[in-house]
């Protein structure tokens, strides 16, 4: 693929390729077992980074959506679309790994607890953003509707964050203002390293998705210009 020779993409790819095995080593071999939950607690080292990256991507989508509604420039729409898709990917991973952790911890796969329910709502809103693009009458109308829905979806992120405080749910709160850090130093180091690697992976996926969006635009522009020439010639 000759168009992939971008230095930034290569640097991100190399960083992820080198650091991801190190993160896995830390998750499985360096971090100690948690006393109560045992090995299942290690799900935390990729469940929480997936959630943080899903929120980050929702804010990328929000920036793209506001930028598009303000300027109507296609680059912002591409940012919004890429952010939405990646936010949905990571939100889906959170919604799958969460129940896999909940079963050994709580004894049930799912409860309609506030944080879980609002995270599911975020996933549904993100899926809605992608669906309105597909079913809109024109790409411009789809971009406009998705941008508005994207802003609504982003409003759910602070609600998810505060849900445990507002509605006293079961979901554990490990970090936060006024909370005493319960993690052992090895656990904290593993979590922070895993978070860094997932953030780099997110950067790589976002750069790749933006590249796809750029190619889609170029194909559309060339197709339209050829159709225009054909029309002019006729």
């Amino acid at each position, binding site marked *: 693929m000759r*168009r992939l020779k971008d230095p930034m993409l290569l640097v991100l790819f190399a960083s992820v390729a080198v650091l991801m095995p190190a993160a896995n080593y830390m998750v499985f071999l360096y971090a100690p077992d948690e006393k109560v939950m045992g*090995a299942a607690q290690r*799900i935390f080292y990729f469940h929480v980074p997936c959630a943080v990256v899903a929120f980050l991507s929702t804010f990328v989508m929000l920036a793209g959506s506001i930028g598009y509604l303000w300027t109507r420039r296609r680059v912002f729409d591409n940012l919004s679309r890429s952010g939405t898709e990646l936010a949905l990917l990571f939100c*889906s*991973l959170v919604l799958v*790994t969460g129940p896999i952790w909940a079963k050994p911890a709580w004894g049930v796969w799912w409860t309609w607890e506030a944080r879980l329910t609002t995270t599911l709502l975020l996933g549904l809103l993100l899926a809605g953003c992608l669906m309105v693009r597909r079913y809109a009458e024109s790409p411009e109308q789809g971009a406009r509707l998705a941008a508005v829905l994207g802003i609504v979806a982003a409003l759910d992120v602070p609600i998810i964050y505060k849900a445990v405080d507002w509605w006293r749910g079961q979901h554990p709160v490990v970090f936060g203002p006024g909370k005493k850090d319960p993690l052992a130093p090895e656990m904290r180091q593993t979590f922070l390293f895993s978070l860094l690697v997932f953030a780099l992976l997110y950067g790589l996926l976002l750069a790749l*998705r933006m590249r*796809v969006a750029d*190619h889609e635009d170029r194909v559309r522009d060339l197709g339209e210009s050829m159709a225009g020439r054909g029309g002019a010639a006729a």
Partner: protein
Amino acid sequence: MKSYSFLFWAYNVVWIGIAAYVAFLFLRLRSLDGRLDRLERRIERGAGEGQSSSRS
């Protein structure tokens, strides 16, 4: 031991999900590359034909 099976499934779900998305992106990029190449060639050919017809 049962605790490990939950960890195993969660770990696999994350990597299968990410790998599937990366594969989707690469396939889409390859198909777009192909379409871009074809369109660029058609435009170049059209420009070449335009020049030769204007000379004659």
